[in-house]
């Protein structure tokens, strides 16, 4: 076993093996074992075993040199420092044990971070400013006409104000006909127009003195006829759900004009 290379045996050992069957058998076993050892894979390790050994080596007392005359006294001899960092395999830091130990701290830290970010974002937030909408010219006009009517004393003045109100409603219908997706607003406007023309305007026209009817109501009738024509033309270019409302308004305007003409005719008789 002290032979370094089994293939190159010393001469005397080789002569012995030639004459000794037992030793030859033993030699064969030794060769097989040696071969098996060479094929054996070195198990993977983190190097901790080696570390442990070297640390033990480093921790062992210095060599007892007092028994040697050629060596200096023990106190003056210091062991050669072993630079473990160069020799040892680098320790692979594994996160799993660390995470397993400190995960609650991590959760708390993450929660605090999210909270701080949210607080910083929300702290200075003002209520969202609404996009300012322009004032409504139609509302302005309807308010103005309402108080104008309240001040109007004579039927002729009231008829004039009601005609303006009807024109306002008619114009609004023409302008939103294509924008009103459901037709709900057009329907509301049609109902308002019907009320203003047939319940308001025509009823108030009857209050106008017969002597004034031709002068006062003539232009009103003409305006209603014009409104009928315009509403019909706009209906032709509008989506059907708006067109039907415009056609109704055209009919209302036409009916109103007919009623006004009747009143003028009655007065003329």
């Amino acid at each position, binding site marked *: 076993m002290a032979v370094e290379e089994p293939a190159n045996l010393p001469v005397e050992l080789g002569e012995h093996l030639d004459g000794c069957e037992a030793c030859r058998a033993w030699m064969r076993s030794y060769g097989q074992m040696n071969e098996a050892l060479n094929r054996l894979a070195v198990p993977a390790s983190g190097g901790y075993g080696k570390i442990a050994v070297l640390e033990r080596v480093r921790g062992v007392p210095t060599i007892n040199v007092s028994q040697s005359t050629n060596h200096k006294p023990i106190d003056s001899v210091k062991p050669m420092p072993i630079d473990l960092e160069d020799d040892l395999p680098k320790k692979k830091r594994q996160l799993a044990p660390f995470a397993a130990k400190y995960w609650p701290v991590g959760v708390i830290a993450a929660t605090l971070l999210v909270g701080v970010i949210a607080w910083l974002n929300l702290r200075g937030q003002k*209520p969202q400013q*609404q996009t*300012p*909408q*322009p*004032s*409504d*010219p*139609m*509302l*302005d006009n*309807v*308010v*103005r*006409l*309402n*108080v104008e*009517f*309240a*001040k109007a004393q004579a*039927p002729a003045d*009231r008829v004039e*104000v*009601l005609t303006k*109100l009807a*024109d306002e*409603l008619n*114009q*609004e219908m023409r*302008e*939103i*006909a*294509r*924008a*009103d997706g459901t037709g709900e*607003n057009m329907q*509301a*406007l049609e109902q*308002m127009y019907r*009320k*203003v023309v047939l*319940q*308001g305007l025509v*009823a*108030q026209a009857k*209050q106008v003195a017969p002597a004034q009817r031709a002068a006062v109501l003539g232009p009103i009738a*003409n*305006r209603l*006829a*014009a*409104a009928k*024509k*315009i509403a019909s*033309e706009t209906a032709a270019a509008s989506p059907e759900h708006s067109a039907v409302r415009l056609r109704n308004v055209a009919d209302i305007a036409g009916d109103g004009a007919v009623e006004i003409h009747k009143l003028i005719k009655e007065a003329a008789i």
Partner: protein
Amino acid sequence: MIRSASILLIVAALCAVVGAQGPKTGLTAAQQQQLFQRNRAMIQTLVDSTVDMSTMSGDYVYRAKTYRKVIMEFQRELGSAAETSDAGRIAELGSHLDTLMRQGLAPSMRAARQQAASGTGKKDLMDLRDRTVELVDWLQDKARNQWADTPEVRDVIQKLELSKKELNESVSP
């Protein structure tokens, strides 16, 4: 024949005038549609009020009563605008409310006072005045204590004070 032709010409001219009325103040159709949608309830109430006044044009007490519905509708919308801190809307509606109270309701009440110098009409008028002033007080109180302190809100409070003064004066002997 000449008469028919002249009527046709007048109608054609009127059509040209009416048809030439372009969109209001540069607003698009979509914008007008949105504005109408937003203000529809107030416009409806105003139109109803106008027509109601026309059907009972001689009855100023009735006329004054129709304004109560209008004012309640506007104060409701004004409250919504204040809750959403919509300064432009507060200014717009505050101005309209002031107009309706001082140029619509107060003159109607003055006319009604003369009309109902004696009789039950006077009591109705006083009741109407008191309830309207209560409404104005309530609105002022809300504006002072619950709405944001902005120039628009302060302007509304001041206008309401002037309206209250005119209402009181409109039926005082």
